[in-house]
């Protein structure tokens, strides 16, 4: 009797432990909302201006809509027209499109980043020459050159293949994603202990076999956080590139367009922001799922 009870309470405890971060996350979001409303209630009506810069925002409903107004507005229609779809649906559609483009960009970044990592692991000279340039590449705001990417793309001709605007966005997203993936993959490929490398050498296993049987599985604990970072970067790249290339239909465009409603419909600009946040969370969540699937390779990880 006692044994059955204790095993049931053990399972209950582990379920609670897994649920805990979500509950705490919800609580912290609620706390943020409370802070927002608190400032609206108790803060100076005209905000605080030091010299010429406004350091604290005004607390009017126009500048800072109530949290419940923001939520309510999501249920309202997209535009004033009678055939308009609800706002939350429009946001989801836009977020969905951006998610798709980000996923493609991420996959491209994964291929390029991983290929570079394998190259750098294989040849020391490649690592010393290429890695600093890879780091340097991240200081280049390629995003700004989005129009150039578009022009380049339109010059590519494979039969009936046509370069579409969203492809420029995906390329830019992949540029931002490949860096953390390349760095993380390289670290992972270099991570095996000397003893394992020597074991492989004692088996006369060549570079390729060592890669497949040792380095790839050993790199998983390093690759997964890198993939997560890459996903987050791909999302940022997608959103900003949408603005640069003028691609419509995505969440980036929506954020920029809706910002014009700041004075007429103050809760509206918040809707695509929530959409972008959701987008980031979903992208990260998908990578975590990947991490779950590869759980076998993470047994060597030391948990904090």
């Amino acid at each position: 009797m006692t044994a059955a009870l204790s095993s049931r309470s053990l399972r209950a405890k582990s379920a609670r432990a897994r649920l805990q971060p979500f509950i705490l996350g919800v609580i912290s979001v609620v706390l943020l909302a409370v802070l927002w409303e608190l400032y609206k209630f108790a803060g100076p009506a005209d905000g605080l201006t030091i010299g010429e810069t406004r350091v604290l925002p005004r607390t009017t409903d126009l500048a800072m809509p109530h949290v419940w107004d923001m939520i309510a507005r999501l249920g309202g229609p997209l535009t004033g027209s009678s055939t308009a779809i609800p706002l939350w649906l429009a946001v989801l559609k836009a977020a969905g499109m951006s998610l798709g483009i980000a996923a493609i960009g991420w996959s491209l970044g994964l291929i390029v980043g991983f290929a570079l990592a394998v190259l750098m692991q294989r040849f020391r000279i490649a690592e010393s020459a290429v890695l600093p340039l890879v780091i340097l590449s991240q200081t280049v705001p390629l995003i700004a050159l989005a129009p150039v990417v578009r022009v380049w793309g339109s010059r590519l001709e494979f039969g009936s293949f046509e370069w579409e605007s969203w492809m420029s966005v995906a390329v830019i997203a992949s540029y931002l994603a490949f860096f953390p993936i390349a760095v993380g993959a390289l670290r992972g490929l270099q991570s095996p202990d000397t003893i394992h490398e020597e074991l492989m050498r004692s088996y006369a296993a060549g570079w390729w076999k060592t890669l497949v049987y040792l380095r790839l599985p050993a790199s998983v604990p390093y690759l997964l956080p890198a993939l997560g970072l890459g996903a987050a970067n791909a999302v940022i790249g997608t959103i900003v590139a949408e603005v640069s290339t003028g691609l419509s239909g995505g969440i980036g465009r929506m954020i920029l367009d809706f910002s014009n409603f700041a004075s007429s419909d103050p809760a509206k600009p918040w809707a695509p922001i929530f959409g972008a946040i959701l987008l980031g969370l979903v992208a990260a969540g998908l990578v975590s799922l990947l991490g779950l699937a590869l759980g076998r390779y993470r047994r060597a990880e030391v948990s904090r």
Partner: protein
Amino acid sequence: MKGILSTSLNKVVPPVALLVVLIAIWQIATVVGEIPAFLLPSPFAIVDELVQFFPAISSATRVTGTNALIGLVAGAILGILVALVANFVRLVDSLLAPLVAAIAVVPIVALAPILYSMFGANSELSRQIIAGIAVFVPVFANTLRGLGQVLPVQRDLMRAYAASPLQVARTVTIPAALPFVFTGLRIASSLAVISALIAEYFGGPRTGIGSFITTAASGSNYSRAWAYVLGAILLGLIFYGVTLAAETFASRHRRR
């Protein structure tokens, strides 16, 4: 002494060599391939623009750099302070963990337009806030990790010496945490520059590098756009270089 020189050379020569080769290929390609400027300007044309427009480029770099710096300093101070609190108050740590994890994956720049309307369209503050939030995340995460680096055996030792909390902090906690803090700063430095720059695409005053890149690009003046990009690269390198030097200095006694 000779060893240090040769290792530094070994580290610097290959990437610089590769970079020079790539730029050379670029220059040759633009001349031989007769690639028009709107497709890809030649490196010489870019440097030419840089020299011609130097005052404008350097003042734009200064604006973006100042925003990035303010964001870096504010975000770093906030990140360290909050990490200290989270280290000692478990409830704060548990509450913040999912929140910071979420901020790390969501596009903070999405807040830019809203911030412009909240703080005014002429304010640089919105860009500084965005840079600050981007900086906060890695500094907080790395500082917290560093504070947790004190080994149980070191804690026991301090307890056996009846050391005061201040002594413990000075002799064990801070030295252990410092390298991690600087790692966080290094990661945050380039984020600060990029975030400050990207925030300029979403509105606000036309003062920084980002605004001028978009102006030049929409005017099809790509050489000038790339010249501003060069300024952004240099800015990013300076930030990265300074924080990297600080990190190397702080970690000099640490076994790898």
